[in-house]
């Protein structure tokens, strides 16, 4: 029932995409939309491996943004937290070679989590105790994080020739756990399983624990939470730290994936944080739905790579994604319309039933 509006939004987004394809090159529009819909399946299981690889970091940032939304906070700073996490993971991965190989990657991921949490802590603290809007502090923290990481890479794990971070030790990469055999794609790794684990943990925390209930209560109505004896300020700080930790893990998972990806020293804010906003919005901030939303967005993104084979611009995919998000904003209206439609039908049914009884 609650997925119907999202599905409608997706259909509307694809229709718009088809329209663009038609305008650009009518002859190949059908083939084009076919390639987009087939997405990762174009190359079978290898393609799905590619989808899961791209989905992993944005599921994590999506989860970060969604968790904060659930607790009434807009964490636009997932980018900064992601970047801090990525650096921490790389730092541990490159420098701490004395660690036992079986736990090296785990320590690196935990470092990423911690770094992300630290970067989320300050906006939470300032929001709770100094009433500073978390949106503005998060934006500032994104820029500070970007420059801080550039400085730290240069000072510690710098590959001067390529202006990027050094490769991490082999043991610091996330184990593949046989997934690369299941999905024959070279960058496939166990990161997706860690992301799924995080999704379930967050689901349980939010839905099945008192702590989660308190967080949501404060998000829903701060005063009511206060009245019920909940320490709203402390919860706000916890919430931002957990959100930051999730984004941080996302950074760690991407750069410990063993896919030959290194952190560049550039003045650009990580896009994964903003992708996380889309993912969480499409998933309506629900952890399980965020998992699927992340996979879905990665799925059509892979379709976009293939779209170039027909000489279509890859950017069309991003426009479709944006359109889907835009239409999903109408979810509220869709849902009430559908509900009104269903209740009307119920009513006509109950009106009809006595008539049936009379005729018998």
């Amino acid at each position, binding site marked *: 029932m609650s997925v119907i509006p999202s599905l409608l939004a997706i259909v509307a987004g694809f229709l718009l995409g088809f329209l663009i394809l038609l305008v650009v090159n009518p002859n190949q529009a059908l083939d084009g939309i076919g390639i987009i819909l087939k997405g990762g399946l174009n190359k079978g299981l290898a393609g799905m491996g590619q989808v899961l690889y791209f989905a992993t970091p944005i599921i994590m940032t999506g989860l970060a943004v969604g968790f904060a939304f659930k607790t009434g906070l807009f964490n636009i700073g997932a980018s900064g937290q992601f970047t801090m996490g990525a650096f921490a993971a790389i730092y541990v991965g490159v420098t701490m070679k004395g660690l036992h190989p079986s736990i090296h990657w785990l320590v690196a991921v935990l470092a990423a989590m911690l770094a992300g949490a630290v970067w989320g802590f300050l906006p939470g603290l300032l929001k709770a105790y100094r009433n500073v809007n978390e949106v503005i502090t998060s934006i500032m923290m994104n820029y500070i994080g970007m420059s801080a990481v550039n400085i730290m890479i240069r000072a510690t794990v710098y590959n001067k020739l390529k202006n990027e971070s050094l490769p991490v030790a082999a043991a610091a990469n996330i184990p593949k756990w046989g997934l690369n055999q299941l999905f024959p794609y070279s960058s496939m790794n166990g990161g997706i399983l860690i992301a799924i684990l995080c999704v379930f943990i967050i689901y349980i925390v939010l839905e099945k624990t008192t702590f989660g209930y308190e967080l949501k209560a404060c998000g829903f109505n701060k005063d009511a939470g206060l009245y019920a004896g909940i320490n709203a300020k402390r919860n706000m700080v916890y919430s931002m730290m957990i959100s930051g930790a999730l984004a941080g893990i996302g950074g760690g998972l991407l750069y410990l994936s063993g896919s030959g990806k290194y952190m560049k020293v550039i003045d650009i804010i990580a896009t994964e944080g903003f992708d996380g906003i889309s993912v969480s919005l499409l998933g309506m901030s629900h952890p399980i739905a965020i998992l699927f939303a992340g996979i879905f967005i990665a799925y059509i993104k892979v379709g976009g790579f293939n779209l170039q084979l027909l000489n279509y611009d890859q950017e069309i995919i991003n426009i479709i994604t944006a359109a889907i*998000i*835009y239409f999903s904003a109408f979810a509220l*209206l869709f849902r009430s319309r559908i509900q009104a439609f269903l209740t009307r039908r119920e009513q006509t049914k109950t009106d009809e039933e006595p008539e049936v009884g009379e005729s018998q």
Partner: protein
Amino acid sequence: MRGLELLYFLGQQMMYFSMPLLIVALGGLFSERSGVVNIALEGIMVIGALASVLFIFLMQQFTSVSGNILLLMALGIAALSGLLYSLFHAYAAINMKANQVISGTALNLAATPFAIFIGRLATGTVIGRTVQQIPFKNQFRISKVPFLGDIPYLGPLLFQNAYITTYICLLILVFAWIVLYRTRFGLRLRACGEHPQAADSVGINVYKMRYAGVMISGALAGIGGLVFVIPTSTNFNASVAGYGFLALAVLIFGQWNPWKVFAAAIFFGFMKTVSASSSSISILSGLPISSEVYKMIPYIATLIVLVFSSKNSQAPKAAGEPYDQGAR
């Protein structure tokens, strides 16, 4: 550089950073004061810059119109395109009662790929070289405003190496204040952002006022896109470098008040100028601090100021909430 010369240089540079922030934050102010949160400012800037730079590019290719006449025409295009694009947000937020963060995010998401797409299309067909950067010739800098540029001290600071856009932005600031605080329209607009039910009860059409707020924000953010690109580059590369989000920060920093927004934009622009030109300031370049550290200064300084100034938030009370006539 040292002394007065340095001061003049910093003042001129500061305008390049401050004016786009000012004008876009003022746009956000109109929207939020009417009750609609507009985080689409970044995307609207991109669209405004895209349309107007494309316009300049085509005019410079095919006509002989040039100089400030062309820039003024481009400003009109920027305002119009920003306004049109913002209608998507207005429709979602006002008619469809959509979550305003979602629709704003969607507009931000769509703008950059659209700009890349159009950029490639335009450069490919016009100059036969498919690139996403739309080039233009910068013939708009005024090296010295006649008469005013000769005023001692103030002349070099404000009226040399300047752009006509700076003065237009300052005029819009004054105009925005008059509209918001000295006209009936402004009072009504602000009422819709504070308590739409009360506004409705005295016969104000909340939907119309909110449309007006969002459309003004679209026009101003569109202009902001062009104002950002012109002094800092010779092409438009489908991006306004996060200035829309910074403008959002300036708006909050400025507590939704035009003059405080102006002060916030100047403060941030000044910090940004100092950090960007640290190498040409002899006092700073002598210190053993890397340029990366200077890059963080504007953001850290803003954070520190916020810690001491945010205890009482002046945010419009109904901003972000769809208006429902039936709600009590």
